[in-house]
């Protein structure tokens, strides 16, 4: 084998088997059209729902910073409650990074999965847990890429009710990621240390963080639902507006 053949063969190891991919795609056509997308979702949701038990330690935040409240009013929002920021107290804690997950396999049983639509999910959590988002962001649930629901045993015990709600613009350069669970914080790998300075929005205490690259993160409990929200590509103003739409709702 010549040097070039060796290097070519080695370089091709990184590439997929074209015929295998072709067969996989064509085989997906044997399923109903809807389920082609769900195959992916099925793999995603159990894990997403269960960032639940994922514990790594990635981001922590030794530094703290605070910023004054945005003075400008929210353009395009008719909700006056969102503009009433007199009692807001915002402190941005510095994050090393947004949450990142490590490998972990969780035993969620699909036969226990109770799928829900948006309305049913709101009924389960007890209120409308979907925020107002910038108009260019679309909910992935609408494209079949996210599924909502809970995992409930036959005896009625709910053992996992963590859901993930994603929004993004068309090329996913602006992404909003919301993990929520009933009665407790969603499990994730962000650890705020004891030095974290809390913020208050509309009377709701929360931990806010941002990274040097301009990503935002929030964690709070409101009306018996725990939230962890992160945003990439959104402005600070947009992120705060998303939060305000939840705590004011």
């Amino acid at each position, binding site marked *: 084998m010549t040097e070039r053949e*060796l290097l*070519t*063969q*080695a*370089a091709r*190891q*990184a590439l997929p088997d074209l015929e295998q991919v072709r067969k996989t795609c064509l085989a997906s*056509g044997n399923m109903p059209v809807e389920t082609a997308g769900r195959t992916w979702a099925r793999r995603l949701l159990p894990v997403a729902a269960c960032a639940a038990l994922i514990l790594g330690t990635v981001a922590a935040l030794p530094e703290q910073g605070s910023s004054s409240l945005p003075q400008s009013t929210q353009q395009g929002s008719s909700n006056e409650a969102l503009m009433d920021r007199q009692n807001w107290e915002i402190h941005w804690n510095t994050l090393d990074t947004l949450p990142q997950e490590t*490998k972990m396999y969780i035993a969620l049983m699909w036969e226990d999965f109770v799928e829900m639509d948006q309305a049913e999910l709101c009924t389960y959590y007890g209120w409308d847990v979907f925020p107002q988002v910038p108009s260019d962001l679309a909910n992935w649930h609408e494209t079949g890429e996210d599924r909502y629901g809970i995992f409930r045993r036959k005896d009625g015990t709910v053992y996992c009710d963590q859901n993930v709600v994603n929004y993004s613009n068309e090329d996913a350069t602006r992404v909003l*990621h919301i993990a929520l669970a009933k009665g407790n914080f969603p499990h994730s790998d962000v650890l705020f240390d004891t030095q974290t300075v809390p913020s208050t929005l509309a009377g709701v205490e929360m931990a806010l963080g941002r990274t040097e690259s301009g990503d935002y993160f929030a964690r709070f409990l409101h009306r018996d639902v725990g939230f962890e929200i992160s945003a990439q590509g959104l402005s600070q103003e947009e992120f705060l507006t998303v939060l305000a739409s939840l705590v004011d709702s």
Partner: protein
Amino acid sequence: MAGQEIALLFNRIYNETNRSVLAYITAKCSSVSDIGDIFQETYLELYRLLLKRGDGYIQNPQALVIRLAKQKVYRHYTLTQRLHQLLPLEGKDEKRPLTIPEEAGPSLEDQICDQALVDQICRELAHRPQVVQKIFTLHYGLGMTLSETAQLLSVGESYVKNKLYRTIKELQGLYTEKDGDNP
């Protein structure tokens, strides 16, 4: 449109576009080990679209598939996609089976030695920076010229040459004998 016709259309688009899509994904991914997943997701999405909307939906297959690839690359690296990586459908690190061609050629021993050497080169490459791995994948894996590789990676051609030849020189220690080693 009947399923058979959709399959034929898919095959035609797949044949026409797979190389450019692979090149795009290779250039844009964070890790070359993600290429396979993103590539498959792209074409699964294409096939789903064809089934759902028929052939009339597609004006420019090349542009559509690149757009889908772009979307899949971005989404692959969002938070939930990182989660998605937790349950790989197939082991990315699984070694490909050793293939032994039936036709007359190098001996079985030579084949095994060559395969071992290829594996060794792969392991060495895996420790190089992503940009080096991308250069090798584009230039040797996909047969792009140095100029095309540089353009795809948005770097200078001299940079590509430098990285490529320097790495080859280092790799040569694996498969060339030093003077005096083998008189």
